[in-house]
């Protein structure tokens, strides 16, 4: 029962902070609420016994991506409120569209009976040892290609961020 309470707490906190990301007027508040959401999702990973993913998630999202967003907001002094928010009818239509998408997704999943093989509390696949073995044997080529992707992204970001024209 204890995991249920943690699950419900994390879910409510994650949904609340996700809503606050959208509802905040200032971008810096959005970034901070986004970080809170990321931590909640890391907690969910731990609940699923996916410790490797939890650690990587905290490092990548709460570490790197949050810092990137914060630096962009602070360096460019973008922390202003929106001057011309979208009109109300656009918001209402977007809200209805989002609710209908949620309805369709939940409805689709509700009718489908998922076969559960194991209890995530006792499964061992999320541990670093097992995932590392698979990552370095079966998925070695994608792993190496992703490093090339990172290099490309790094070069591209540097090139885009340069002051003078190329």
């Amino acid at each position, binding site marked *: 029962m204890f995991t249920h309470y943690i699950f419900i707490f994390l879910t409510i906190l994650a949904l609340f902070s996700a809503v606050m*990301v959208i509802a905040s007027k200032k971008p810096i508040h959005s970034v901070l609420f986004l970080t809170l959401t990321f931590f909640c999702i890391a907690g969910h990973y731990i609940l699923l016994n996916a410790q490797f993913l939890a650690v990587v998630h905290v490092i990548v999202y709460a570490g790197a991506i949050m810092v990137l967003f914060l630096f962009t907001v602070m360096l460019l002094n973008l922390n202003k409120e929106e001057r011309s928010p979208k009109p109300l009818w656009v918001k209402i239509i977007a809200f209805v569209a989002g609710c209908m998408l949620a309805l369709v997704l939940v409805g689709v999943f509700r009718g489908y009976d998922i076969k559960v093989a194991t209890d995530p509390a006792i499964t061992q696949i999320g541990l670093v040892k097992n995932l590392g073995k698979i990552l370095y044997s079966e998925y070695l080529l994608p792993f190496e290609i992703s490093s090339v992707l990172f290099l490309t992204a790094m070069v591209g970001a540097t090139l885009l961020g340069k002051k003078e024209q190329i």
Partner: protein
Amino acid sequence: MTPISTIPIHYYLIFCSTLFCIGVFGVLVKRNALVILMSIELMINSINLLLAAFSAYTNDPAGQILVFFIMVVAAAEVAIGLAIVVLIYRTTHSIDINVLNKLRW
């Protein structure tokens, strides 16, 4: 087969769908390019969590490997996206996406 104390996987389905829809709503409503990028991050995160949940419940490690690769691509995407946002700010002195209507039909 499974003890009663296990969280049903439908809870994860509902939670991740809701999170995804909040992200969609943010993309539709906001005009700030930064907040739109953040909403995209929300969507990516909800998908990641659902993949990890299915992988944990069906005892298949491929799902968690896929989540790892999605994180890699998301990090690269954010780096490039924020560089583009900085460029937009330099040329137009605003990150309102309504300024970017030169290619509009």
